[in-house]
């Protein structure tokens, strides 16, 4: 029985959000790496992406990874793919994530993501899992977030409920 993958498809290795000044706003890793390795990836990929001239295509190569990135206002959304197919769809994935953020925060801007980074992660986790798209309906993701948010206790509830 084969256990090695015969093909490697669209396995997203990571998703990074960073500003034009090189400040990291979100990091999601889909493969296990040490802290040191992560820092190196961030440094190198950021440098490559920030150096791209304005009207370049949204794909570049770094080591054995295809990097797909898109800039939305002051934030770069950047992901690394196994060197296989369909970068065009990945652009749609990035775009969908931005739309989800926009729906949640209402006209999302970088400050929203800075001050509510944990929500940005929660939204991401309703949209992607293990580097694959989990839910293709915008509505479904919004509904999940709303419901989960209501489950979060208010301060009063929080204080009154036992921890364990």
């Amino acid at each position, binding site marked *: 029985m084969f256990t090695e993958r015969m093909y490697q498809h669209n396995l997203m290795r990571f998703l990074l959000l960073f500003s034009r000044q090189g400040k990291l706003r979100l990091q999601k890793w889909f493969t296990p790496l040490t802290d040191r390795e992560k820092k190196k990836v961030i440094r190198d990929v950021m440098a490559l992406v920030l150096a791209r001239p304005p009207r370049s295509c949204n794909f570049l190569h770094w080591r054995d990874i295809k990097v797909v990135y898109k800039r939305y206002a002051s934030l770069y959304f950047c992901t690394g793919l196994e060197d296989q*197919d369909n970068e065009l769809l990945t652009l*749609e994935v990035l775009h969908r994530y931005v739309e989800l953020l926009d729906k949640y925060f209402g006209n999302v801007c970088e400050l929203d993501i800075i001050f509510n980074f944990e929500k940005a*992660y929660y939204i991401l986790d309703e949209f992607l899992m293990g580097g*694959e798209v*989990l839910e293709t309906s915008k509505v479904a993701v919004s509904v999940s977030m709303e419901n989960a948010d209501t489950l979060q206790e208010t301060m009063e509830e929080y204080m009154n409920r036992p921890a364990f």
Partner: protein
Amino acid sequence: MPAPIRLRELIRTIRTARTQAEEREMIQKECAAIRSSFREEDNTYRCRNVAKLLYMHMLGYPAHFGQLECLKLIASQKFTDKRIGYLGAMLLLDERQDVHLLMTNCIKNDLNHSTQYVQGLALCTLGCMGSSEMCRDLAGEVEKLLKTSNSYLRKKAALCAVHVIRKVPELMEMFLPATKNLLSEKNHGVLHTSVVLLTEMCERSPDMLAHFRKLVPQLVRILKNLIMSGYSPEHDVSGISDPFLQVRILRLLRILGKSDDDSSEAMNDILAQVATNTETSKNVGNAILYETVLTIMDIKSESGLRVLAINILGRFLLNNDKNIRYVALTSLLKTVQTDHNAVQRHRSTIVDCLKDLDVSIKRRAMELSFALVNGNNIRGMMKELLYFLDSCDPEFKADCASGVFLAAEKYAPSKRWHIDTIMRVLTTAGSYVRDDSVPNLIQLITNSVEMHAYTVQRLYKALLDDISQQPLVQVASWCIGEYGDLLVSGQCEEEEPIQVTEDEVLDVLEGLLVSNLSAAVTRGYSLTAIMKLSTRFSGVNRIKKVVSIYGSSIDVELQQRAVEYNALFKKYDHMRPALLERMPIMEKSASNGPTEIVQTNGETEPSVVDSKHPPPVSQPANQANDLLDLLGGNDVVPVIQTTVPTKPASAGGELLDLLGDLSLSGVPTPAPSVATSQPSFLLDGLSSQPLFNDIAAAAIPPMTAYNKNGLKIDFTFERANPNPNVAVITIHASNSTEADMTDFVFQAAVPKTFQLQLLSPSSNVVPALNQGTVTQVIRVLNPQKQQLRMRIKLTYTLKGSPVQDLAEVNNFPPQSWQ
């Protein structure tokens, strides 16, 4: 104890820091507060503190002291705690630390929680970072959730299962029952993740692949519904219904249809439909078209569909959107081997992409252009590629130069064109060519006998202009050393001969020796060239002087050469003319890959290849003579076996390097070959040759060449890529006697119109009782397509006594030489 400051408050504060130092100070202060709060086992504010820690972690500060706190949060009953706890676990923990295993029990409990959002958190965490051990422990829970009717949980369980399978492939079987009716779901989330799960399983196991082939009709139906159904606001993207699902289905169909005629046929219609009806004005439509093209090219689609696919790519090339052009070039590069003619039709568009401003596109266009070069378009293509070489960024120049050399070698319409092209590359991108180009070019020039005068003249003129580009200077020095007599005699036919004196030539060469621009290697070339001119020029005194000066050079290499050349003038002057005479023609085998092997044509006198060590030529000549005699005279060219040479790029430009590492003892050693460096991208394209070549080879039946006294030698055939005149024969020697045959040597000779090259054998010992075979590869160049004949000589030792035998092999199948 005042309440710890809130998360947003902290963020606001940190952002007011004006310097890195100020920020660090704030962070340290807050970390200290958080630490003491943790020590107090404060349940109320643990959540807040961990959240703050995660923020600081994102800024790049260490946060490992929060790891255990995350675990405590996960174990808490409160949803707010769990949410932050699991997030913290995903950010701060990884499978490398043992502490992550402590999560396992919590996750197990939460997988069975009454609230689906808690279950969701657990599935998400497991599916993102679960280690193999955790996956093993919890796979059963995941499998249970895969069968639930709750679509929110089902979709998460599906992707969690994917992760489990990636981590622990042996567990794949246990998810099989749950996949039974995954595709009958209406919920798109479940459908999408199910398709991902099925894809993962099919990719990993041929059995699963075969099992799931029956899903093709269902997948086709689902895809059809997506395309035909009306507007669905929930899944719509610019007028297309759920493109993510469409693409994943297309991908799964690709895997199922590959190498399977029936499945491919079943999906033919839907692929044609998607290919023709998808809206192409936006990226999303093109994403689907792209996936469709990839699928069409990979499965056994009918030719009409394939042409449709390539035309879509051709249209992509003309699209304004850079991304789409890039993607088109990438795909065309993959298909250029199998559908070469179809891609050729888009050649001019591809060549235009060389002028694109985008770096990624230029690179792809260059690779594709080289793949499209053939005998018919070489002149036109080379013009474009040389123009590209002139103007491209330095990062491309090395690869482009190598590509030009390779293409020129394969398809040069004339020797003059070939040399002109090389000159052009050397003068425009000379500093970027790879080291191994120099010996290759020298060999090419040597073999173009009628062009010697023209070449040396052009190279000389180039040197007058510019001596900074080392490869150019090295090749030029070598040529001047070799053909300096032609240079001063003004004999050039191809162009106006220049008038140059011996002194002027020596001026140039000496100039190279002293110039700061010359590398050490170049100086070596130059000194040797000067020395060689001593037998070609009339005035030797000047040369003697130069040589004696460099006898005390600090450069050890130069010093050694000068000292030896000096000795040549003094004690061995009688040998000088012979030692420095014109190089013989070097026959190169059809080169197409890392094993570029050079052998001498046995006809010419083997001139001294190394001024230091005259090689022992006597022994192989004797062996060769044996073969010659028996075949009655001169119609056989003896073959000197070569071992595969080490990289010829070593310093010094020694004459030895050019001829490779000749094993002149005539006995090949089974040494592993050392591959020379090659521009990998081009060769990747070449080595993934289309199947049609292999199929042609499969048509050549194997044969038994020799079978006597227990030794049997079989020949198997294939055609060498890309040269159809070269037959590649592999000999398989087996031994049915009771004892091993040691010191086994296989030698071969062929008639004069052929050229033969023997690579290293796999071993010198043929094991007894057919327990193994010795293999060896023979390459036969047969440009005149004459009937192949071969005389072979076998020597080995059996039970202590040497055995020798000669045989003729005449029963080659016609396909091997026609």
